[in-house]
């Protein structure tokens, strides 16, 4: 049996993939997700069936983390990704980069603050 972390990843991969492939079908019931996951992992060595309750647990964890949205208007509830994989990546990288200026600007800035000889060496290295 896969760990919860691995399952979260597999579920998000499915939802994100669906989002980019077919805009009409982006929300799934837990059952549909279970079937898709089972199809993907049917070669797993232990051969244990994935329970729908496990998928629901994973989905509620993802919902708490703000990654998955639940559509409650019809039963059974359907789940969809809140935003695309790319947007999450950008968000994550912004956290690391801050509002980093573009590469050229930073390079220009520190080339301006080192000596002429150092700047020359640096240019040579960068164009090598």
């Amino acid at each position, binding site marked *: 049996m896969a760990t919860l972390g691995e399952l979260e990843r597999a579920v998000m991969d499915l939802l994100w993939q669906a989002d980019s492939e077919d805009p009409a079908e982006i929300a799934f019931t837990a059952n549909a997700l279970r079937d898709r996951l089972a199809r993907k992992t049917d070669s797993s060595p232990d051969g244990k069936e994935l329970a729908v309750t496990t998928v629901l647990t994973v989905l509620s964890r993802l919902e708490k983390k703000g990654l998955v949205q639940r559509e409650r208007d019809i039963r059974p509830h359907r789940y969809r990704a809140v935003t695309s994989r790319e947007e999450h990546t*950008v968000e994550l*990288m912004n956290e690391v980069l801050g509002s980093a200026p573009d590469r050229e600007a930073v390079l220009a800035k520190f080339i301006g603050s080192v*000596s002429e000889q150092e700047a020359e060496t*640096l240019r040579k290295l*960068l164009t090598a």
Partner: protein
Amino acid sequence: MFWASYLLAAMAVILAWPVPVLLARAKWTARAPVTALVLWQAIALAGGLSMIGAMLTWGLEPLGENLLAGLQGLAGLLVSYAPAPGLDLIHVFALSAALLLGVHLVFTLLLTYYRIRKQRNKHRDLLNLLSSPVKNSPKTLVISHPAPVAYCLPGGAGSVTVLSEGLLELLRPEELEAVLNHERAHLNQRHDLLLWAFAAWRSALPWLPTSQLAQQAVNELIEMLADDGALRTANRETLIRAVAVVASGERPSGVGAPAKELLTPEESEALSTAHRLHRLLSPSPPLGKPAQAMVLGCSALLLAVPTVLLLAPGLAG
């Protein structure tokens, strides 16, 4: 005991302003980053100790010759509710301020720890969904992003180094190895602990020049230390090129750096990178042993003086 509190206050002022300004301008720090880090820590600790100590000894003056006697007197007072001759409102005020500052510092330290941890956990959660591991390189993840980024996410056994696809495209294998070794040096030398302590110091006393300058200096010094770590296996040109490329997108402290700074984060980062590049392009020999020993001696003295001032008065006379 008044003289002790005045000396402590004078020391607090010196450590809060002229000393950090001078040290931040000093050039030798790049030649002895470890020693410089020790000195910054001593300045921060001694500064905090003298600030609290000055108010404490001043407030306890009517109760005892030194800190221990004063605290004993205070405890006796609290137990017996007896009126204390000479303990005026102003003394009580100084004592309360000392207590408040002490609690504030400890509380901010804990709060900063909690905030950093929370942010890291959230980051790690998302990272687990978005990144993929690298073959043949344990604890290394790749994230699909065009900007050249490399950073480390500390967390004990779960520490990871994250590289962006943009970086993998721009760097040659040996440069990538240098970047990885740089990040691993951050993780192995537990630079996150230093960043945590100085980030807390900074958010506890944001208006104090020493806390701002100290944080910037520490950020820069740990980058230099990590560069030295990378240089153990990489050659200088390789590292220089890698630093220049990564500089387009890296913020040194990774996750958990607080927002406001003297310079904007970008300016401070560009400046720090310039210093690192200068250090790599025109290497100077490490600071001599005697000079380093002198700095370490000063650091020890910085911690010893306020301690002696707190405890000695009654004992000496």
